C-alpha cells in the first residue's frame, strides 16, 4: 500500500495540518516508508487470532450514574483565546 500526492494533501486537510507544496513530496516519501514498514506485518499469519485490545486481560471499568463533576465553567474556558460569559467564541461557522 502506498499513497499518492493527492492522498497526502487530502489527509493533511482532514487533519487540519497546513502542508506547503514543497512539503508534499517529502511527506509522501515518509508516509510510504512507514506504510512499507508496517506492511511487513502482512507476512504473519493471523488467521483465527482475535485482535488484541489490551495487554492485560481485564474488563472495562464502569462508573456509577452519579454527577461528580461540573460547575467549573471558568476553568473549562480558561485556555480559550476568546470567551464571553463562559462561552467559547470561535469564527462564525454557519450552514
Amino acid at each position, binding site marked *: 500500500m502506498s499513497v499518492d500526492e493527492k492522498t497526502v494533501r487530502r489527509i493533511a486537510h482532514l487533519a487540519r495540518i497546513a502542508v506547503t507544496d514543497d512539503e508534499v513530496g517529502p511527506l509522501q516519501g515518509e508516509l510510504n516508508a512507514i506504510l512499507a514498514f508496517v506492511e511487513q506485518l502482512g507476512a504473519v499469519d493471523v488467521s483465527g487470532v482475535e485482535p488484541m485490545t489490551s495487554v492485560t486481560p481485564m474488563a472495562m471499568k*464502569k462508573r456509577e450514574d*452519579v454527577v461528580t463533576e461540573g460547575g467549573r465553567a471558568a476553568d473549562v474556558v480558561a485556555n480559550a483565546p476568546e470567551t464571553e460569559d463562559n*462561552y*467559547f467564541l470561535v469564527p*462564525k461557522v454557519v450552514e
Partner: protein
Amino acid sequence: MNAPVDPKKLIKGGLHDWEVIVGMEIHAQVSSRAKLFSGASTEFGAEPNDHVSLVDAAMPGMLPVINAECVAQAVRTGLGLKAKINLRSVFDRKNYFYPDLPQGYQISQYKDPIVGEGEVLVDMADGSSITVGIERLHLEQDAGKSLHDQDPTRSFVDLNRSGVALMEIVSRPDLRSSEEAKAYVTKLRTILRYLGTCDGDMEKGSLRADVNVSVRRPGEPLGTRCEIKNVNSIRFIGQAIETEARRQIAILEDGGTIDQETRLFDPTKGETRSMRSKEEAHDYRYFPDPDLLPLEFDQAYVDALAQGLPELPDAKKARFVADYGLSPYDAGVLVAERASADYYEAVAKGRDGKAAANWVINELFGRLNKEGLSIEASPVSAAQLGAIIDLIGEGVISGKIAKDLFEIVWTEGGDPRALVESRGMKQVTDTGAIEKAVDEIIAANPDKVAQAKEKPTLLGWFVGQTMKATGGKANPAAVNALLKAKLGIA
C-alpha cells in the same frame, strides 16, 4: 422490501407515479443523570459550560470511563425493539472537525454496535400496520451546541451537551410515505418513553432525526438517496420528506440525476438545501478508541434487565383489547402514552371497559386537547371519572346529565356523588312522576299521537318532549317503556 406497491402511497409526478423510500437514523438522548463517559450532569438548561468536566472539554490526558446506566439503558431499548443484544461491542473514534466537538472525534460505535437487528410494529391511522426493520442501535457521544445569532462574526460554543449519551437507532429503508415515517417516529418515541430510556422531548432536542429519502418508479431498483439532517419535529419530518421527494422527482423527470448528498430542511421556506460543507466530512477514518476496552457483559445481565422492563405498548394494547373488549383503535389511542394508559386502567378497574374507554377518549381527551393540557394535568381524576361512570351504571343519572356533571367536576372539582345530591341532578325513576309528564304531553298533542300509530319513529319526539318536561332527569328507559305502552307502539 419488494412487497406489492400500494398505489395510494405513490406520489404523482408530471410524467409518472413515484414511490418514495425512507429510512431513518434517530438520535435519542439517553435518560441518565451523568454523561456517557464523564461525571458531569446531563441536565438541560444550565449556564454555559457549567455541566462540563475536563473529559468533556477534551483536556489533554483525560480518559473516558463509561457510565454503566447508559449501557443498561441501551440494552433496555434494544430489548424493547425486540433486537439482538450484542454481548461484546466496541467503541470507535469518528474523526471530524467542528467547533462544538472539542476532541476532534466523536466516540461512537461503528462495526460492532451494542444492539443489532430488531423491529418496530407501526399502526397506521387507517387500521393497517407495517413492520419497520431496525438495523442497529449504537451508543455515542452528543456534541456541544453552537449559537450563531449572538454576534455578527463569532459563534458561541457551549459544551454542556458535549458527551451526553445518545442512542443512534438506524431503521431499514422500509418506509414508503411521509405518513409511515411520522407514524414510525411516533411509535419509537412511545416505546422509548415507556422504557424510560429517553424522554422523547423533541423541543429540547432529546429526539432528532436524520431522514434518508430516495424515489423510484415502482418495481425499479432503489434510487440515489439524500440525507436530510437534524429534523427536530414529527411534523417537519413529514414536510421534509414530501418536499425532498418532490424535488428529486422534478429533477428525474427533467432527465437529471440525483447527487448523493447531505441536505438541510428549512421549514420556513419549505425547501431542502445542500450542506456542501458536510460532504468532505464523510471521510470519518473510524478506528477503535484506544482509551476504551471492548464493552462486554453476559446474558444474565441482559436477562436481569429484561425482567425489569415495563409492559410495552404493543403488549398493553393487546391486553386492553382482550381484557376490556376495546377496539384495536381505541386501545391504540389509550396506550400511546403510558400516563394515559394508566389513567384508563384506573378508571376501567371494576367497571365496564368500553364505557370507561368512551369517557376517557371522547370526553376527557377531547377536553384536554381543547385546553392544551396533558393527562397528568387533568382536573378530573380517574377516581372522579370512575364515580361519574358508576352513577350512570347505577341509574342515578342519565348519560346526558353525566356530561353536565363532568363539566362541573372539571371546572369546580368535588365528589361527583355528593354533587349529584346537592345539585338535584338525580334521575327521576319514580314512574308516577314520569307518567304524569307523559300523560300531559299525550293530552296536549292528539295529532302526533295519531300519527305515531302509523309512524313509530315519532316515539323519539315524545321521548324528547318528556325529557324536556322533566329537566332531563327522567330515566330514559322508563320514559321509553311508558310511552310505548301508552302510544301502543310495539
